[in-house]
C-alpha cells in the first residue's frame, strides 16, 4: 500500500512536470472491458433508479434512507466494501461495476442486471464524481489472487486453527453462526449496528460467492465495516486454508460452488425496492 501511494505521488509529480503546474488530478475516465462510461448519461440513470436511496448528493441520504437497514452507501467518502484493492484504497471501475451488477445480499440494493452493460458503466462513471478521492488518488493495484490450493482435510484442519488464531470466532462465533462474544457490539463507520456474516445460513457473501471472492474478502477487508484485511497477517497459502475451512461452516448452503444459475440466485436473494419497502419498514 505504501508503495502504491508512493507511486501515486510520483505520478502526481510527473503530471506537474508535464502540465507545468497546477494541482495533480487524475483523469476520471471509467472503462469496463471495451466500454467507456459517460457520467452525464449515468446522471440521468442515477436520478431515475438510485436517487431515492443514495440521495441527490450521493451521501446515502435519499428519502427512502430512513426506512432502510443497512443504510445506503455514502459515495462522498469514497469508502467501499467490495474491492479488489487493499484496505484504504479506492476500488477499481470493475469493482464498482460488479457491485452494481451483483447487488448486495440481505440489503435493499438489488442486482441491476436489468440495465444494459453500458448503462451500468455509465452509472459507475457518475457515482465516481461524488467523491473527490477519485480525482486526487489513483486506485491501487488489485490484491493478487493466486491459484487455489487443494481443499483437502489437512488444508481444512490448518484453516480451522487459523480461524481460532486470527480471532475470527470473536465476531463470527465458534461455529461461524455470527454469534461470537463481540458480535453484538459491532457497528459500521456511521455507528449503525452491523451483524457479522452467519456462515451456517449459507447465503452468498456481500462481495461475491466463489472461493476467489472469499479469498479476496479476507485479504482486502470490507472497508467501512468491522471486517479487517488479513493481508498483513495471512500468507496466501494460509488464506486458502481459511477459505477451505470457512466453506465447511456453510452447513445449509444449497451449493458450495457458483453455478450457471448464480445470477438468478442473486436476484432472488436481493430485496426489492419500491412498494415492498413499506412492508419491510413495518417490521421495525
Amino acid at each position, binding site marked *: 500500500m505504501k508503495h502504491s501511494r508512493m507511486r501515486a505521488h510520483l505520478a502526481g509529480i510527473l503530471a506537474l512536470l508535464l502540465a507545468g503546474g497546477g494541482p495533480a488530478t487524475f483523469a476520471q475516465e471509467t472503462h469496463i472491458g471495451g466500454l467507456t462510461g459517460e457520467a452525464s448519461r449515468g446522471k440521468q440513470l442515477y436520478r431515475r433508479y438510485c436517487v431515492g436511496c443514495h440521495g441527490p448528493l450521493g451521501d446515502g441520504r435519499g428519502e427512502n434512507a430512513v426506512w432502510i437497514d443497512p443504510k445506503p452507501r455514502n459515495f462522498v467518502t469514497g469508502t467501499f466494501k467490495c474491492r479488489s484493492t487493499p484496505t484504504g484504497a479506492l476500488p477499481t471501475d470493475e469493482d464498482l461495476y460488479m457491485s452494481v451488477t451483483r447487488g448486495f445480499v440481505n440489503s435493499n440494493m438489488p442486482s441491476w442486471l436489468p440495465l444494459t452493460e453500458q448503462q451500468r458503466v455509465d452509472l459507475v462513471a457518475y457515482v465516481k464524481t461524488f467523491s473527490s478521492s477519485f480525482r486526487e488518488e489513483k486506485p491501487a493495484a488489485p490484491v493478487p489472487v493466486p491459484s487455489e490450493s487443494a481443499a483437502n482435510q489437512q488444508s481444512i484442519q490448518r484453516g480451522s486453527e487459523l480461524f481460532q*488464531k486470527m480471532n475470527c470466532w470473536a465476531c463470527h462465533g465458534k461455529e461461524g453462526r455470527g454469534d461470537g462474544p463481540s458480535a453484538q457490539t459491532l457497528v459500521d463507520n456511521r455507528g449503525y449496528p452491523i451483524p457479522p456474516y452467519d456462515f451456517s445460513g449459507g447465503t452468498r457473501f456481500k462481495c461475491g460467492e466463489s472461493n476467489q471472492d472469499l479469498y479476496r474478502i479476507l485479504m482486502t477487508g470490507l472497508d467501512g465495516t468491522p471486517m479487517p484485511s488479513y493481508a498483513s497477517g495471512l500468507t496466501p497459502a494460509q488464506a486458502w486454508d481459511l477459505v477451505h475451512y470457512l466453506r465447511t461452516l456453510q452447513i445449509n448452503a444449497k451449493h458450495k460452488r457458483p453455478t450457471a444459475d448464480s445470477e438468478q440466485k442473486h436476484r432472488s436473494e436481493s430485496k426489492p425496492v419500491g412498494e415492498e419497502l413499506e412492508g419491510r419498514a413495518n417490521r421495525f
Partner: protein
Amino acid sequence: MGTIIKCLHLIAAAIFAFSTAPDIARRTMAITRASGATTRTSEAWPGVPEDGTVSGTVRVTGPQTVATRIDMAADPACLKMHPAPVMSDEVVTGPNGALKNAIVYISEGIGNHSFDPPTIPAVFEQKACTYNPRILGMRARQTLRLINSDPTTHNIHPVPQNNREWNLSQPPGSSPIEESFAREEIIPVKCNVHPWMKGYIAVFKHPYFAITNKDGMFELKNVPRGEYTIEAWHEKYGVLTQKVTLETNQAKTLEFVFKR
C-alpha cells in the same frame, strides 16, 4: 516510451532528494543569523524567532465520575494478562481535577505555513489488550508504526472523516505495520475483536500540540509571535477554545476547565 518514463521517474526522484536539502540550509542560516543568542527562527516563518511558549493545565470540575470496569471475558488471552480488575482509562484525573490525556493544540493562526513531518515514526502499540498510548499525537504524512505486543490477534480500525479509512488485522508475533494519514484530524481508533479497546490518533499539520500528563499539564514550545486560537480536546468532555496573543520570546499560561 519506457525510457522516457524511466527518465521522468529519475527526475522526480531527484526533485524528492533536493526538496529536503534547502530546508536544512535555511534552518542553518537562520541559526547563524541569530548567533550569540539561543533564539532560533522559524522554518515556516522565515526570520521570525520561534521562542514563545504556551503552557498551562487542563482540569475538570463537577461531580466525580466512577470509572467503569472493563470486562475482558470475551477473549481469554486478554483476561489472562490482567489478574486484577481493569478500570476504564477514558477519564483519568489527579488532584484539583487535573485531567490527563487531553490534547492541547493551535487550531488557528498557523495560516498556510507548512512543516515537513518528522522522519521518526509515531508508535501506537497494542499491549495487554489496550492501546499504548491511548491518545497519540502525530503529524500528517508522518509514518505511523503499529505494533502488536500481545499473544492475541487485534485489528486496528481507524474511523476518520477526512482521511482514508482502513482496517488491518495484526496477529501475534507479526512485524510492525506502517501507515500514515494525509490530513489533520482527531481519529477514533478501535479494535472490533475487543470492543473495549478505544483510542485516538490526533493528526496535525504543525508541531504545536501536546497531550496533558497526569497533572493535567501541557506545554507548546517554540511558538513564533502571533495571534492564535488554542483548543483543548478531551474524548469525553469535548472541546474548549481560548485566544492568545504571543509577542517575541513571550511565555503565556492558560487554564482550561471542563465542566461535568
